[in-house]
């Protein structure tokens, strides 16, 4: 299959002289795209899958952006902001694709700003408060980034082969970015674990903070299982991701935490819209402007 021109993310948009108050200001981000869906792919499931991967990136991007001006050093401010921006870029493309596949007229902005908490399908790992502030610290932020980017890199490496040309293109681009993110987190893990006794304690505690939410990454969801050849079954990724994490832990002299996973709520997890209380606060801040001043620009 040739991917040339398979994805036209952003076509000419009107109104680009206005600066964005929020969102992107594009009228039709997927205009001109090869909209053909692979034959036999269930539309509801493909929409949900794009939302799952898009929401993971959007929510973690928001969390990382919270560090801007508050990281331990200037270089790290810039690093976390760059990583957040990569994830935001991935989120835009995935939410645009979700809106297009769904066919109900929702664009990336509508999906990002006008959905309520229970409609978000991200894993709970990305939404918990890992600081700055009392909810966490830099070490837990690094621990989460290490786990998440290792997992997402494993997903995207396989998604490159997806029968959906848009998912495939997003993944091919994302693989390179996620590899940078993972290396960055791995190098900080070594630095913190190998620093002072205190920094090591904080790194150990950071891993313990995020570990209960790691299992959820690998639980196959009915949506993923309904899309053979299009989606990636995350239960198959555990050995590869564990190997990466064990390599980092080994080099850092850390042990893989032995902490029980956080239970689903009545059998439902983040992928089903059952979230921790942290997501509501995050969305309140992220969506405030768009909801109070619909269509605002300046």
């Amino acid at each position: 299959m040739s991917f040339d021109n398979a994805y036209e993310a952003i076509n000419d948009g009107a109104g680009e002289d206005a600066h964005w108050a929020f969102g992107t200001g594009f009228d039709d981000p997927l205009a001109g795209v090869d909209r053909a869906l692979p034959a036999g792919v269930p539309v509801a499931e493909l929409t949900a899958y794009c939302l799952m991967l898009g929401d993971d990136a959007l929510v973690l991007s928001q969390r990382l952006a919270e560090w801007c001006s508050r990281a331990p050093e200037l270089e790290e401010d810039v690093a976390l902001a760059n990583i957040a921006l990569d994830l935001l870029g991935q989120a835009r493309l995935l939410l645009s694709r979700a809106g297009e596949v769904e066919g109900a007229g929702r664009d990336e902005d509508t999906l990002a700003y006008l959905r309520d908490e229970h409609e978000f399908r991200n894993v709970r790992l990305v939404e918990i408060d890992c600081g700055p502030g009392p909810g966490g610290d830099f070490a837990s932020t690094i621990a989460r980034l290490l786990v998440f980017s290792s997992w997402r890199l494993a997903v995207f490496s396989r998604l490159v082969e997806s029968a959906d040309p848009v998912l495939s293109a997003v993944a091919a681009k994302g693989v390179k970015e996620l590899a940078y993110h993972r290396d960055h987190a791995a190098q900080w893990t070594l630095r913190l674990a190998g620093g002072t006794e205190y920094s090591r304690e904080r790194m150990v505690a950071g891993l313990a903070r995020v570990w209960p939410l790691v299992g959820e990454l690998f639980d196959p969801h009915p949506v993923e299982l309904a899309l053979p050849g299009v989606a990636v079954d995350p239960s198959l990724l555990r050995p590869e991701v564990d190997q990466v994490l064990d390599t980092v832990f080994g080099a850092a002299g850390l042990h893989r935490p032995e902490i029980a996973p956080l239970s689903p709520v009545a059998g439902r997890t983040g992928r089903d819209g059952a979230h921790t209380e942290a997501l509501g606060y995050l969305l309140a801040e992220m969506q405030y402007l768009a909801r109070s001043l619909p269509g605002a620009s300046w």
Partner: protein
Amino acid sequence: MTARAVAEGVLDPELPVLTLAELGVLREVIESDDRVVVTITPTYSGCPAIEEMRRDLRTALTEAGYRDVEVRTVLAPAWTTDWISESGRRKLLEHGIAPPARVGPRPAGPVPLNLVPPPARVPCPRCGSAETTELSRFSATACKALRRCESCREPFEHVKEL
């Protein structure tokens, strides 16, 4: 001027020493009558400069007399720093920015983990010394890392390999 020549002359907003053509983001220029369709590809998924590029291309082509200009963005195949042309690399160096090394196609299998920044021979763009150290993988723009020369002690930017 042909539409292609106009499009090829547009500068990158973040590395304004390079044209979009030299950066390798200009993928296709199709001209028919007074209609032009330009295709570009972003460097990074979240690259905010893509909007500037689209606007600059449209402005340049409109000013050159093309009335119907469309700028499309494609994601695949993904941009790589290998697409930065020889003249682009030379211009970067002339402006004190170290160009990326050639990376070639990605080998099959899992992406290797780098527990330490991979050894990179990035000569200093000022004095040519090979003794340079990475200060930060991330810099003012997503595509550049920050390094320092151990000989002349000057910091410099490096377009990192992607």
